[in-house]
Each structure stands twice: as structure tokens, then as C-alpha cells.
């Protein structure tokens, strides 16, 4: 037997890779995780790039991470805690503002300041979106059935799927009308959806933000309503749609997962970039790394996105041609950038009154859907948005571990930023120009902001690809549109975490149920591997 033999190799120590690895290790398998960077975590990391300040360099807030996973892996034991945040605000050029709060009545009063009708419509809207969240919740944990297969497992799966779609368990069953509504919802643009409820521009703009974060769709693009659901379907302790900070930054999530993995005998190897999958007789048997090591295992699970997995580390000769073509056609367009900023003090945002909890969470300054669509238009031309949609938050307001008392860490997510920048592409100079542009945009709402900056990290889609390994810097590892969701994710016919290459699996966000720090793809993939290996499964998730 060659050296370095394990039961399972997981490629990539992001949150899904670590989730899959932990579940498999807990089930008694010998698991090794190989990571290209000399740190672990993928896009869920906390790194100190400037002394005294911790950044959540990529993902920055948590809601989607399935509570069953946190429970099964006992992540609290390894230091994970989620701090819910109190509110969110959109600042307006006229000095006014719009806010949402943890408290429902406060939100209603806030909306009423802008439109009486919208305040009441918000109740109906919340109910309808909550209904969608309840419908999708059990689907997240399912391996999507293959609708073309007649295997009992798939026939049963299809029935199960239909049952969940009609919310038989979650909501005692929906009527025809509600099911039609769901189908409409999945295909609509967020603008059209919101216009069925709201009249005021600011209400619509504030709510539409969740529908464009991370996607290469605009608010008027069909399918963008689903992206909103994707951001709403998470929860913090049963409060559906709530978001929170991971204490210690997003890296705490992957650190905790690593803690669990190690406790169950698993191993993580940083600085071990997998260059190719070793095959024998059409089966995957191991991987080779950049530093010349070889690892062998019964099963190989890739946490890389579907393009990297099959166009970079797997050889085309080992895969069916039509599969390779589908993978090439997979939409994974980068559209987001980020600034991580070390601040000497809390910046003033004069629009938001002091003490208003609305300023405790995400802050924005896009006032209309039209502005948002305009930002998208720039992206289509290969430019960063001149008037971007930003999702800013200051985790250190709630989390004492990110910076010294009185100092603050600010995370600024920017939509839209192209991967292929027009007129010559990205270089250091243009990256810095982009960073300065965003700082200028924020300064318009915060007069003392610039003076407080000690350091900032600029991240374009190019950095996300090079450093984290997300193709084109797409944060969801693939666009969240119906043609790439559920049984179509990553490609039709291969939605069950198995790949055309025997013994090779995929557990990344490129698979169902998709992007975000959710862990569900990892847990789902682990279930399939364990099934194939006849290893009994246990836990709340399964």
C-alpha cells in the first residue's frame, strides 16, 4: 500500500470541505483535507493583515449556516458563537434614512415614515417571504432527485421533493394558489416582485439589496427574486431571515469546524495545493499536490467550484465530453468586490441618529432600484459601478474581538465589480483606483470617515479567484438561477454530489443548495459518500 493512504481526501479547506470532512470523520472515517493556502477557511476567514485589526476578509456575516450542522459538529465547543445584529439602514442624499430592526413594530413605524401603505404591505410581504423560506428549508437538506431516473431512490426523492414544495410538513400543505405563487417567485425579477407590495422607492431599494448581493443579475433581471430568498432563508436561533456576526470573524466558523474535525481524528494540511487527480482504470484513486506529494484514498471529495474541479485538476480524458461542455457553460461570473478597513474610531454617519439601532447592522446608500440597475449597467460594460450598491457593516460595534476597544473594523461589500475589467483588465494601479473610488463614495455619507482609516484591503473578483480559488471571483461558486439550481446544480444529471469519475465527489457551493456560508452542500455530499461506503450516518442533519 502506498504511503499517505486515507479513506477520504477532501480538496479545499473551505467551510463546505470542512463540514463534509467533519461529518465523515465523525462517522469513523480517516479523512485528510488538503488546502492550497497556508491558512485554512476558504472564503470564511479572519486574518490580521494590519496589526491590531482582524478582518473577515471575504464573507462577513452569517445566517445561512444550518443550525443542525452547528449542533452536530458541536461548533460552540470549538469557539463558534453568532451575534445577531439589531438593524439595517439605507442613508438618503437628503439627509433622511430608512431602517429595519430586529423588532417588528419598530420596522413598521420606520416604514410608515416613508409610506403608510408600505408599512401595512410589509406585513403581507413578510408573511409571503416567510412562506417561501419555510418551503425551501427542507429542500436544502435534500440530495436533489434525478427526475429522469426510474431508480426507486429518485422516484421516492421526486415525491419527497414535491411534498416539500407543497410544504406538507412545514406548513400543513399549500393550496394550488400558493404553489403557483412559489413558481412565479422563483422566476421573477425582484423589482416586479416588490412592486406587487410597495410604492415607495426607498422601501423597494432597501429590500432589493438582498436580491443582488453576489449575483451577476440586476434588480430587473428575471430570477433575481430567488437571490433575495437565498439571503432570507437563513436564521439566527429560529428568527428566519436574521443575520449575525460570527464572533471573532467568519474565520471562527472554519476554525471551529477544524476543531471538530481534529477531535475526530481528521487532519488538515495547509500549503498543499492539489494539482491533479490521479486516476486508474477510469477511477479516481488519489491526488498529487504542488509540492510533489501524493495522497491516495477510496474517495475523493472536491470542495473546489465545478470549473476548477473538472477543468483544472481533472483531466478531460477521464470525463464524458458532454459533461465537460456543460461545465464549461456553467455561469460563474464575478460581480462583487470588497474593502476591509481598519478604523481608528467609529465614523459618523449623520443621516442615522445617534443611538438608533438601525445603524447596528448593514448600511447602504442606494435609494432607488433604478440606481441599482444603473450600477449593473456599468458592470455589463466591464466597469466597476460608479454609483455602487454597498453593504457596509462594522462588526466591531457588536464583537469585542475584532479590534481594541474604541477601534473599529468595517467591512464594505461592493456590487458591481467585473472580473474582466474593460480596457486592459485589473492591475495594481486600477485596483487601488477602485478602492479610492469606494472610499470617496462612503465619505459622502460620513465626513470623518477618511481621516479614521489606518489601513484597508481591496478585493476585486481577481483576488477572490487567485487567493480563494473562486473562479472569476463569483462568491456563490456559480450563479443562483433556476438553470443552475436544485437538480440542475452544478449540471443536469450530476446533482447528487457524485461525478462522472468514479470515486470522485463534489461538495462545494457549486452544488445544491448553493452559495453562502451554509454548510449544506458539504453535509449533503458527506451523506452520499457515507451511503456509498455503507457507513452508518448519525446526527440531526440526516
Amino acid at each position, binding site marked *: 500500500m502506498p504511503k499517505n493512504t486515507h479513506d477520504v481526501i477532501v480538496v479545499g479547506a473551505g467551510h463546505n470541505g470542512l463540514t463534509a470532512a467533519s461529518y465523515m470523520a465523525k462517522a469513523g472515517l480517516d479523512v485528510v483535507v488538503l488546502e492550497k493556502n497556508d491558512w485554512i477557511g476558504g472564503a470564511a476567514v479572519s486574518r490580521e493583515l494590519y496589526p491590531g485589526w482582524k478582518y473577515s476578509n471575504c464573507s462577513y456575516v452569517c445566517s445561512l449556516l444550518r443550525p443542525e450542522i452547528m449542533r452536530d459538529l458541536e461548533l460552540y465547543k470549538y469557539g463558534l458563537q453568532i451575534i445577531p445584529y439589531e438593524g439595517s439602514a439605507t442613508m438618503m442624499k437628503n439627509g433622511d434614512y430608512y431602517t429595519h430592526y430586529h423588532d417588528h413594530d419598530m420596522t*413598521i*413605524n420606520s416604514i410608515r415614515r416613508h409610506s403608510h401603505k408600505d408599512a401595512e404591505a410589509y406585513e403581507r410581504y413578510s408573511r409571503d417571504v416567510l412562506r417561501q423560506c419555510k418551503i425551501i428549508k427542507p429542500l436544502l437538506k435534500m440530495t436533489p432527485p434525478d427526475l429522469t431516473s426510474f431508480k426507486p431512490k429518485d422516484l421516492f426523492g421526486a415525491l419527497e421533493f414535491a411534498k416539500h414544495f407543497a410544504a406538507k410538513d412545514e406548513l*400543513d400543505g399549500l393550496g394550488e*394558489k*400558493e404553489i403557483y405563487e412559489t413558481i412565479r417567485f422563483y422566476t421573477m425579477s425582484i423589482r416586479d416582485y416588490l412592486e406587487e407590495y410597495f410604492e415607495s422607492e426607498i422601501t423597494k431599494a432597501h429590500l432589493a439589496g438582498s436580491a443582488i448581493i453576489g449575483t451577476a443579475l440586476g434588480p430587473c433581471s428575471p430570477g433575481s427574486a430567488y437571490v433575495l430568498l437565498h439571503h432570507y432563508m437563513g436564521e439566527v436561533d429560529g428568527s428566519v431571515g436574521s443575520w449575525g456576526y460570527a464572533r471573532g470573524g467568519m474565520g471562527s466558523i472554519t476554525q471551529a469546524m477544524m476543531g471538530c474535525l481534529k477531535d475526530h481524528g481528521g487532519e488538515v494540511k495547509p500549503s498543499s495545493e492539489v494539482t491533479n487527480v490521479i486516476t486508474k482504470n477510469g477511477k479516481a484513486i488519489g491526488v498529487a499536490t504542488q509540492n510533489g506529494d501524493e495522497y491516495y484514498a477510496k474517495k475523493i471529495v472536491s470542495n473546489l467550484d465545478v470549473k476548477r474541479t473538472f477543468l483544472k485538476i481533472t483531466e478531460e480524458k477521464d470525463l464524458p465530453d458532454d459533461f465537460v461542455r456543460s461545465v464549461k457553460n456553467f455561469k460563474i461570473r464575478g460581480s462583487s468586490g470588497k474593502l476591509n478597513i481598519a478604523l481608528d474610531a467609529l465614523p459618523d454617519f449623520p443621516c442615522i441618529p445617534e443611538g*438608533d439601532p438601525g445603524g447596528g447592522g448593514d448600511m447602504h446608500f442606494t435609494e432607488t432600484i433604478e440606481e441599482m440597475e444603473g450600477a449593473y449597467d456599468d458592470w455589463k460594460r466591464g466597469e466597476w459601478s460608479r454609483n455602487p450598491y454597498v453593504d457596509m457593516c462594522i462588526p466591531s460595534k457588536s464583537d469585542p474581538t475584532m479590534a481594541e476597544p474604541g477601534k473599529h473594523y468595517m467591512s464594505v461589500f461592493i456590487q458591481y465589480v467585473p472580473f474582466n475589467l474593460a480596457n486592459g483588465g485589473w492591475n495594481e494601479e486600477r485596483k487601488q483606483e477602485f478602492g479610492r473610488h469606494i472610499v470617496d463614495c462612503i465619505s459622502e455619507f460620513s465626513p470623518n470617515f477618511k481621516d479614521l482609516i489606518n489601513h484597508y484591503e481591496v478585493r476585486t473578483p481577481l483576488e477572490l479567484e487567485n487567493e480563494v480559488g473562486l473562479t472569476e471571483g463569483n462568491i456563490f461558486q456559480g450563479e443562483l438561477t433556476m438553470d443552475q439550481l436544485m437538480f440542475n446544480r452544478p449540471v443536469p444529471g450530476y446533482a447528487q454530489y457524485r461525478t462522472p469519475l468514479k470515486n470522485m465527489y463534489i461538495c462545494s457551493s457549486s452544488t445544491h443548495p448553493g452559495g453562502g456560508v451554509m454548510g449544506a452542500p458539504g453535509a449533503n455530499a458527506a451523506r452520499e459518500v457515507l451511503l456509498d461506503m455503507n457507513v452508518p450516518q448519525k446526527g440531526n442533519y440526516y
Partner: protein
Amino acid sequence: MTQDLRYSALKKTPFHSRTSMASRTNKYYNWNGYTVPTEYSTTELEYTAARNGTSVMDLTPMGKYEITGDHAHRFVDYLVTRDLSEMKDNTVAYIIWCNEDGKVIDDGTIFKFSSTKFMLCCAVKIYNWLNDSAYGFDVSISDVTDTIAALAIQGPTSCSTLKKFGATDLEKLKPFEMREYKIDGFNILISRTGFTGDLGYELWTDPKNAETTWDNIEIAGKELKLRPFGMHALEMTRIEAGFIQTNTDFMAAEDSLRPTRMRSPYEIGMGWLVHLNKNSYFVGKKALKKEKEENTTERCLVGLDIDGDKPAHGSVIYNSKKEDIGIVTAALWSPIMKKNIALASLKRPYGIKIKENIFAEIYHPEELEYRKIWARCKVVKRQFFNPERRNKVPADLYE
């Protein structure tokens, strides 16, 4: 009087300075986005005031919508299930309205000033529903919840209290009639309506007049056993009267997350308010007609007279085979009747054809332990308490 509502959860009513002064318990709750007392001193005494003297309650949080315009009468008749085509000016009617599937959105009262001006009072927020339904009607709808201060003045001596306050000839007002008064320079509308199932009135005025009105009513009722009365006491009286409460006894169709929780009027004992043979169309008529014709009504809301003296809060109702047949939506030990009563939603035929051998499983808390009581229930009329004085004209006076 505008309040700064930035980052505040609940509003204060125009009576807040007075209700908060009257409150000895400092117990409040959120009614429709407003802070109102649940209890001023002792719920039992407040309840007694409503059945013995005069009880005063701040009613302002109730949703109030003004419907005006040439089509106002037609629109209102289209909105609700009851035939209002013959409704007279200066009268009030109890109504329910449904969505297009014939599921109840809410119940409430409609006040007719003239064929071009109505006011609708209800529990849930329906500004959007009214506007959406008004498509094609020449009406304008405004939410007047904040701009009209309202008080409920209920109880055997309530007519005398209000007469003393300045409402001349009030005893001649019939139930569901209303009259405009001018008192202390302010217009005050008084309607003979209420939620206690007793003699009682409701009073509607300008928020600017709220504090003075409260003070003067207190003075007027001084010798007439007047007491401010909170939500808990109201809950007691409304159960005795058999009145239903939205989102307590049934889920409002527009608020239900689960479609199976929506109820038709026939399922909540409101079939008497559905006039299928009214000439004009109304929202939900087709669905309700179909339900009636095909006899597909699944549930009913009934009154229960329960053995023993332990209120059956939230109890599951069983048949003799211990099969689950429904749930208690509201329960009370009635002080005036000395009866253990409840409203319950049952699966038909229980409550309609089968009225015997029905049991409530009551969990009675006793110092960190629950005593499980298996109590026999009798299906009775939902209107448990209905005193003669309630509808008497002229109304009883204490002079």
C-alpha cells in the same frame, strides 16, 4: 400632536397621559402598535365595573378607516358579506369580510354617516386590502386610526355617566345607532356599540379633545361606579358575550402563514352574516356559495360549558374515543354566571351534530406541577351572557 417615531416600537394614544396616570400596575401591552394598559388595578374589579357600573377603555388603537366618495355605499356593500343595501344613515352594523376564496379577513363594525361617508373599525390592518378592493370604485380611503381618539364606555350605568357628561337624550339611542354631539366645543360621536355584550357606548372624537374628555367622563361617572378598564377585563366580558377575536379565535386570512388555518364564516359561527342572496356581488361570494352548496364546511366555533372550575386555556378537545376533535381558543371562569366557559374550534360534525361526550383535557398548574383534568363539556350557544338591559330602549338610567 405628532410623535417622533424614529426607532421606537410602540406609539402612545392621545389618552396616554391619563391612562398611564390611572394605571396602578404599570402593566401594558402592544395593541396594534400602541401601548395600552392590560390592567389598571385589579382585573376582577375592572370586570365588575363593566357588569355593575361604568367601565372606560381606551379604544384608540382599533383600526379605523374612513371611506368616502360617490361609490362609498356600493363599495362597502361589495366589500362585506352582509347585505347593507338598506343600511340607514347614522347607524352601525356588525360585519365580516372575506378574501376571494371566502376566507375571513376580519370582523368589525361599519358606521354609516351618509351614502358617501362610512367609517370601518376593525382589529387588523387592512389599508392595503381596502385600497386593492376599491379598484374601479369612485371612493377614497384614509386610515384615521391616529386622527380619531376613541373610548369605550360600557356597563349598566354607562348611559347615566354619558348623560351627565353632556349627551342629552342618550337613553333614546337604540343599539347600533349613533349620534353626533357637541360637548365642550368639540364634536363627539357616540354610538351604542361595544365589545362587552352589555349596555354600552363608544365615543369618537378629535385627539385634541382626548384628555379633557377622559377627565370629564371620570367626573361624570364618579358616583356611578366608574373605573378604567384594561385588556384583561375586556377579554373576560367579550368571552361571556361570545364575541370572537381575530387571530385568537380564528386566524385572519391575510395573516395566516399556513393556508389550512384560514377559515370561512361558516367555520367561525358567522354564517348569519353571509347573505348569499344579496343582489350585488361581494368578495368571496362564489367560494362561499360553493361551500354552502357542496356542504364542505370543515369546522365550527362553538361555546362550551365545561365541568369543574378550572379554565380550559388552550385545551385540546377530544371525543369519547380520545380522538382529537378541536381546540379551545378562549376560556374563562365567568364570575357573573359562575360557569366554566370556553370558545372552541371543533371539527364537524362535532359541535353541530354531535354535541355530547365531548371532553377537554385541562392542565391546571399547581406549584410547578400540572394537574391533568379530564372535563366533560356541553356544547352551548356561544352567547353565554346576554342581559336584557343590553338592548333596552330607553336605556336604564340611574338618577
